[in-house]
């Protein structure tokens, strides 16, 4: 295994300039659960590694009624899964985080890492899509904020530029009469990647859907929102026929591939099944 230089900056500015100085040769180390595996397998061959672990304030979880949920990019998956605020108000995100690896992995893996690897199957991303997360990104050139929906470009590719660091995620406050859920289709109970991941958030008012968001993982080149299905549901009650229509529209909007886990046809059909199930479970939580 190739050796590398390790930098442990204590500020974002320092980290960003180290990444810039080292051109395309530096890699960010967050939790390391993907980077170290890639490095051991010879897929990642960093010459310089910039660890974000010594920068304070990047691993906090805060909730404010007016501004919503704010999570530092270096927050561990296990902390997200165990946060009572996230479990109560952003349930699908806690469920997504709890699906990553094992407890040992979740004590290392970070939310920022799960997002920035840009895997179409990332367990937290379907939930972050339905909660309308905004990513706060810092670099030596300043800061920018973008919706997570615009962040992903393709499998393993995001719009993150060299020298940029995802410092925080902010999700807007949750309405009272809403519920959310994430379902991961998998073979093993733990330590498995999603065949299909579906997250939903449902807000009901007087028995009809006031708002709904559906996020799909592992069924397109990037995690996506099933907007056609959302539009079918809005303004309607959750009747069997409306649910069926919406679920089919979600399947229609997916563009899965066949791989060693399962076939494209299976994935598409399971999007239909799981979308319906996820919406029903979200509504049952209200």
């Amino acid at each position, binding site marked *: 295994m190739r050796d590398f*230089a390790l930098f442990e900056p204590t500020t974002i500015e320092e980290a960003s300039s180290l990444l810039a100085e080292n051109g395309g040769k530096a890699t960010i180390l967050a939790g390391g659960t993907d980077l*170290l*595996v890639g490095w051991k397998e010879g897929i990642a061959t960093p010459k310089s590694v910039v*660890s974000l672990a010594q920068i304070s304030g990047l691993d906090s979880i805060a909730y404010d009624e007016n501004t919503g949920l704010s999570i530092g990019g270096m927050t561990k998956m296990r902390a997200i899964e165990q946060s009572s605020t996230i479990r109560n108000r952003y349930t699908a995100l806690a469920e997504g985080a709890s699906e990553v690896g*094992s*407890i*040992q992995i979740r*004590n290392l893996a970070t939310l920022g890492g799960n997002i920035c690897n840009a895997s179409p199957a990332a367990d937290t991303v379907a939930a972050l899509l339905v909660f309308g997360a905004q990513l706060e990104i810092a670099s030596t050139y300043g800061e920018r904020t973008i919706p997570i929906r615009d962040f992903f470009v393709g499998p393993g590719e995001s719009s993150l530029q060299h020298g940029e660091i995802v410092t925080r995620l902010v999700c807007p406050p949750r309405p009272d009469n809403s519920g959310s859920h994430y379902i991961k289709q998998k073979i093993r*109970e733990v*330590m498995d990647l999603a065949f299909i991941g579906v997250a939903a958030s449902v807000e009901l008012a007087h028995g009809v859907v006031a708002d709904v968001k559906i996020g799909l993982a592992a069924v397109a080149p990037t995690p996506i929102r099933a907007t056609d299905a959302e539009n079918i549901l809005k303004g309607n009650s959750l009747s069997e026929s409306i649910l069926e229509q919406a679920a089919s529209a979600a399947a229609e909007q997916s563009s899965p591939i066949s791989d060693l886990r399962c076939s494209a046809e299976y994935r598409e059909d399971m999007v239909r099944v799981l979308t319906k199930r996820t919406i029903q479970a979200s509504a049952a939580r209200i």
Partner: protein
Amino acid sequence: MKKHLVSFTVNNDQYDLLVEPRKTLLAVLRDSIGLTGTKEGCSTGDCGACTVTVDGKSVTSCLMLAASANGKAIKTIEGLSSGSSLHPLQHAFIDKGGYQCGFCTPGFIMASKAFLEENPNATEAEVRHALGGNICRCTGYTKIIEAVMSAAELMRSARQAR
């Protein structure tokens, strides 16, 4: 490559070491400090044989750089017993036969310790789920789970006695 000065405690002993950036915590525990109770199985975080606790939380030490452990308190299987008195988990693994070849045992015990300290009243289903990141190649899961459930009981009564 420039070595990093890393200071941490392992089983309450202080260590100040110069380590190469590429050394994992697992490599330093085994090769530099000589604590070979912690095992290397897959080395990609899948098998859990390298589980230790860092500030009380279980981690796969094969996926953590030793440099990242600076300032932390690490506990390995060697630090569980106090003198000749075994930890309840060690007792239970012996009593219930919770091992065959023994290679996965330190990882199972360290993962169980961290989980039971957080969840002293865990059900068997919860324990099985929590140990999903540990693999036993001898397929001895039934006895392992029996051992952990029995240790949980021992740990609860020890807590009450205090």
